[in-house]
């Protein structure tokens, strides 16, 4: 290692120690200092690791968490980056602060932001990439789905030998010829029919002949067993597949992959895709099916802000993070599996981390809520007017709807809601504010769970 790299590492580690000893936090700043001194630091930091990069629009965090659990069944030490540190500097900090084993290769499972894949592959040649999905997301910051995918591919082009483990149900992942070996995973749990995606769906043009694609079945959004009726282009062969769904509730899912039964302690069909991705990586790395079953069945770990459950004076409050239309529709479907009556709270902010533009709520199928057993609706957040009007247009009656322009009152009102179960949909900064208010009121501990 060069003197410059050693000094850069020392500076980064010192700042990390300082920030963690005297402040709570510091996942990006040490990486910033380190890369400032030695821009190529990832090369020396990553050289003793086998790296697996997980990227895509939705599901990165949970897929990463599940994949780490699966691989810990076989590997003594697995490095991963904490939530929210999926850009270059956070990744540098992650390597910087690892206590790696002395002997042999270490394993790193990294969640990487789509545009940052190239910043990693410039220095590290991963063993594998996992592509979860690409959806329309916060379009005031990101580009189009095609440009997002191209950004990922620009990074992958620097590692043509790495295996790609991709969601085979997502048409875009079968749209470009790549030199890399590719393994596809997907769903094969239902009989064939003849369908087209809902008209308000992205990415439904055949990349070969530009006709609208059709489906034998759709799991959600534009994913499923797709084919082009015009030119015959179709879903690739799947290596790993969900073969049946047996039980879906808001906090539990039971299903079969390649004929073996699995159980995860989290709801939502989209999370079964995440579990399937983790399974596929596990298989790719030689973890046994029974070890993967055991890892995924482990209930102890909740992922920050994703279906977190909090007790507020006897109410079972579940907080769900929402940030883009496809994710929103998936959690609407997820609460639709609730069997008890419940209350719905929608908290909308439009800060940078939420997306400055609130228009995405109009692509969400809030109309579906009105078919559920919802006793009371509550709206709040800095953009409470937008979410309130959205619910009204969806058909929510005025006498069922309460609006709060501050979170303190919204939280105070939770104990007066008419149901034991409460689902809170919140955008990122609204969720942070809500957690802070819940901490101030003594319902949870301060800080990140």
């Amino acid at each position, binding site marked *: 290692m060069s003197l410059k790299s050693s000094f850069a590492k020392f500076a980064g580690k010192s700042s990390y120690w300082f920030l963690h000893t005297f402040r709570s936090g510091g996942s990006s700043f040490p990486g910033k200092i380190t890369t400032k001194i030695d821009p190529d630091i990832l090369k020396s930091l990553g050289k003793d690791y086998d790296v697996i990069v997980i990227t895509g629009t939705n599901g990165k965090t949970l897929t990463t968490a599940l994949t780490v659990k699966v691989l810990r069944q076989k590997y003594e030490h697995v490095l991963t980056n904490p939530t929210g540190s999926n850009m270059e500097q956070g990744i540098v900090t992650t390597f910087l602060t690892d206590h790696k084993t002395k002997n042999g290769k270490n394993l790193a499972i990294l969640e990487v932001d789509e545009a940052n894949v190239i910043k990693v592959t410039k220095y590290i040649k991963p063993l594998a990439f996992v592509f979860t999905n690409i959806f329309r997301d916060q*379009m005031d910051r990101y580009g189009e789905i095609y440009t997002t995918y191209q950004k990922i591919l620009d990074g992958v082009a620097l590692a043509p030998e790495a295996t790609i483990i991709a969601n085979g149900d997502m048409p875009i992942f079968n749209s470009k010829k790549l030199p890399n070996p590719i393994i596809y995973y997907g769903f094969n749990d239902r009989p064939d029919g003849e369908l087209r995606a809902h008209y308000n769906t992205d990415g439904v043009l055949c990349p070969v002949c530009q006709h609208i694609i059709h489906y034998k079945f759709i799991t959600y959004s534009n994913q499923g067993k797709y084919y082009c009726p015009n030119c015959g282009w179709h879903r690739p062969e799947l290596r790993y597949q969900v073969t049946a769904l047996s039980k879906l509730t808001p906090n539990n899912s039971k299903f079969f992959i390649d004929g073996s039964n699995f159980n995860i302690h989290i709801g939502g069909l989209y999370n079964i895709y995440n579990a399937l991705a983790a399974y596929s990586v596990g298989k790719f790395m030689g973890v046994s099916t029974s070890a993967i079953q055991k890892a995924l069945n482990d209930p102890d770990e909740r992922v920050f802000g994703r279906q977190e459950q909090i007790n507020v004076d006897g109410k079972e409050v579940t907080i769900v993070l929402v940030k883009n239309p496809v994710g929103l529709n998936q959690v609407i479907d997820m609460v639709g599996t609730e069997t008890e009556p419940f209350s719905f709270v929608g908290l909308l902010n439009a800060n940078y981390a939420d997306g400055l*533009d609130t228009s*995405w709520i109009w692509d969400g199928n809030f109309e579906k809520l009105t078919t559920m057993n919802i006793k009371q609706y509550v709206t709040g957040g800095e953009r409470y007017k937008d979410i309130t009007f959205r619910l009204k*247009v969806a058909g929510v009656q005025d006498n069922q709807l309460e609006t709060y322009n501050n979170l303190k009152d919204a939280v105070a009102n939770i104990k007066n809601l008419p149901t034991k179960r409460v689902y809170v949909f919140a955008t990122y900064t609204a969720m942070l504010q809500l957690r802070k208010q819940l901490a101030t009121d003594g319902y949870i501990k301060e800080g990140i769970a």
Partner: protein
Amino acid sequence: MAYELNVAHLYGDLLNTYGDNGNLLALGYYAKQMGVELKTTVISLDDKFDPSDWDIVFFGGGQDFEQSIVSKDIQNKKEDLTSYIEDGGPMLAICGGYQLLGHYYIGADGEKIKGISALDHYTLSQDNNRFIGDIVIKNPDSGDEYHGFENHNGMTFLGEGEKPLGIVEEGHGNNDKDNSEGVVYKNVYGSYFHGPILTRNGNLAKKILLTALKRKYPDADLSKQEALEIQPTF
């Protein structure tokens, strides 16, 4: 319901970014309050657009790839769309839809993408810049104020017979040079507002619905519909 209006959602399966569909939801919401039922049909690639079938046309915006495909297909609908517009048919066109009604626009990669020249504007692109943020405009003739969010790379310049939808009070508008935003030509409204425009500007939704009703039911007494008061939602 006493009245029924048929809405053509032009390329609704390809051009639907930024909550465009919310415009149809808002239109339906206010229509219901007017005793009007909306029937919406997506008119897409290879479909025929027959001007006599439709009372309202909605034309949204999309990603570059989808817009370039639409640009080719819409040439086959050019004459029918032009006659619908010239005949006073009400239409709302957002972003890409607005651009494609004009002569052409320049895509993000510099490619010239053909419109249908039904309206006399054209659209250039900016280098590595987008107009993004909250926007407020005011229509000098009606005094109507519109609130929204804009997010576009295109810079549109209006031509013969075109008036802006409003004068920019806050934000960028059509091109950030002449203070104009959007277009009004006959009963066509074009705009760069996303958000979507009709969810925050119910009065524009009302205007479009009333125009369509008067056109389809010339002898009906629409005083109740005209009296509908729309509460601000922003």
